């Protein structure tokens, strides 16, 4: 299945493995260290959520996996294995061959994600270009069936319409239909509900969950909405300032958060606030500048329980449970998993 040169050390490999990824964006005022030693696994047929504030690097991670980074981005360390192959060692044509076949993506803003001068029909037929066996007519029939499945009424006649003739919610359904039409092994969803209102959000999340089960693909679900992540995901990674500070199962993260940032994030989620209050809780301070190099813990300026060691030493990843780990010196009493 895979050649030895690219074979990772592990015996059983997840569908997607991100290992020690470092990424910089070149800007006029210097390199922005946007991803810092990021490691993440997405097992086949599971839904993994990435949560974090804006600017935490969660979308950048999604685009890195897709291979859709802007020109000023540079990966300086690490590897991404997808189906056992290192994506960074592949020629760009081979990466393009994976996109829209084994990998597909749903984007944040459905209003601008579809080409305004091409009909839904032509776009949906076009994206099946990896499929050389089916005829145009079969591809069209598959597109109509998929539109039907995602809840577009009267897809037979509406498939000829243009994007501007659909509402935002309908357009996101069309985008989901397109992304799943190619039956990917991994679907990346980058804040697919952020641009939609709350009732639509629930519908879209349910739709994603149902379709994921039907198709059996894995999903990397990027969101800042904790409720959506809790409802949809099997596993969660929490990102802060370009680092994965904690990851584990949904149960681990939501019931037994280990990192002070995760706890703060959960306290700020309006959906989880139990007490009556007049003010929404916030995490004091701002996300630190990602310019330049820094020695200590990335969260220490805003951390309520920071101590001396946090300034001097970068915390390694400590294992808390079988699938649960976090980067915080408070956990140093317990067993280390990596250095």
């Amino acid at each position, binding site marked *: 299945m895979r050649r030895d040169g690219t074979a990772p050390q592990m015996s059983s490999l997840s569908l997607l493995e991100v290992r020690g990824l470092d990424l910089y964006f070149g800007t006029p005022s210097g390199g922005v260290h946007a991803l810092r030693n990021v490691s993440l696994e997405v097992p086949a047929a599971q839904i993994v959520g990435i949560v974090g504030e804006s600017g935490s690097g969660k979308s950048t991670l999604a685009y890195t996996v*897709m291979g*859709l980074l802007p020109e000023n981005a540079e990966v300086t360390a690490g590897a991404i294995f997808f189906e056992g192959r290192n994506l960074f060692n592949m020629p760009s044509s081979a990466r*393009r*061959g*994976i*996109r*829209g*076949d084994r990998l*597909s*993506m749903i*984007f944040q*803003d459905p209003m*601008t*994600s*579809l*080409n*305004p*001068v*091409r*009909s839904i029909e032509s776009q949906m037929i*076009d*994206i099946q*270009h*990896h499929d050389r066996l089916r005829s145009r007519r079969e591809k069209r029939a598959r597109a109509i069936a998929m539109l039907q499945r995602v809840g577009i009424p009267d897809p037979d006649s509406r498939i000829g319409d*243009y994007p*501007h003739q659909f509402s935002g919610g309908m357009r996101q359904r069309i*985008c989901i239909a*397109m992304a799943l039409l*190619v039956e990917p092994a991994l679907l990346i969803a980058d804040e697919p509900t952020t641009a939609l209102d709350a009732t639509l959000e629930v519908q879209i999340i349910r739709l994603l969950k149902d379709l994921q089960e039907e198709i059996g693909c894995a999903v990397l679900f990027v969101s800042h909405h904790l409720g959506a992540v809790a409802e949809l995901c099997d596993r969660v990674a929490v990102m802060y300032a370009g680092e994965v500070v904690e990851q584990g199962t949904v149960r681990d993260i939501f019931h037994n958060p280990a990192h002070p940032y995760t706890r703060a994030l959960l306290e700020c989620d309006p959906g989880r606030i139990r007490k009556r209050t007049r003010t929404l809780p916030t995490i004091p301070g701002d996300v630190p500048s990602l310019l330049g190099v820094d020695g200590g813990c990335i969260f220490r300026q805003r951390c309520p329980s920071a101590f001396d060691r946090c300034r001097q030493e970068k915390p390694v990843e400590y294992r808390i449970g079988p699938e649960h780990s976090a980067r915080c010196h408070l956990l140093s009493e317990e067993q280390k998993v990596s250095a």
Partner: protein
Amino acid sequence: MWLYLLKRVVLGVAVIAIAEAFLLLMIHAVPGDPAVALLGPQATPEFRAQLHQQMGLDKPLVVQIVTFFGGLLRGNLGFDVFSQRPVADVVFEQLPYTIELILVSILWAVAVAVPLGCYSAMRRNSMIDQAVGIVAVATIAIPSFVMAVSALLIFAVMLGWLPAIGAGTGFADRVIHLILPAFAMGIGWVGYISRLVRASMLEILGENHIRMARSFGLSEWRIVTGYALPLAILPTVTIIGVGIAWLLSSAVFIEVVFARPGIGALIVNAVRARNYPVVMGGALVTTFLIVTATTMSDLINAALDPRAREEL
């Protein structure tokens, strides 16, 4: 759609009416007698009066305006002072030459400029992009008549490759006679359209739907030609529609330089000879052309852009 066309027709009629009324007013207001200017001071009073009558100058301004528009409604644009032929005949005899020149110029310019603009956008800031950029600005800046004289000097006089003047007879000869004028007229447009396509291409390539198309592994060629270009071409269509006025302006000079027949040369000669009915008729037809071209470009835009279709 129909409302849009109606608005266009109303605007067109208004533009033509105001323009022609203004010209009549100017003719009236200018000190001195156009008939004297035309015939010279030695002309006999009878001859002068006859000319006055022909040009309708013996009547009050309001009557002149009413007479002119009355005639216009019946398709009568007045008579050429010298040849006594109907102005409409004179103008429509020259019109095909100008339209032919404009169409050929703009077609070759678009055919060269669109690929050039796409290439510049895809290889942004490369040596070729920067060179094309500088040459483009230069060709836009240099006036078309200077281009025409230069082309004439180099290719016709010095190298002798192409005929210098006239429009030619027979298809092949006419094509050969079109090369230099169309080159001189189109070269500035190559620069202009290539920059326009480059700019809108760069903008479109940064849009979300292009990233979406890339996420499905479509080839760069397919994305540029099938997804970006149909959008990037839209400003060009609009500009060509609006630019018909500039094209008519350059046609005036190009036709004079290459001694081609055409509406521009007709108007210049009529102005020099103070043949006012022909000037008025020429202005009328060119205004009509401009209004038509703007409308056409809106309609083409609507055909290319489903969003614009609904605004009509």
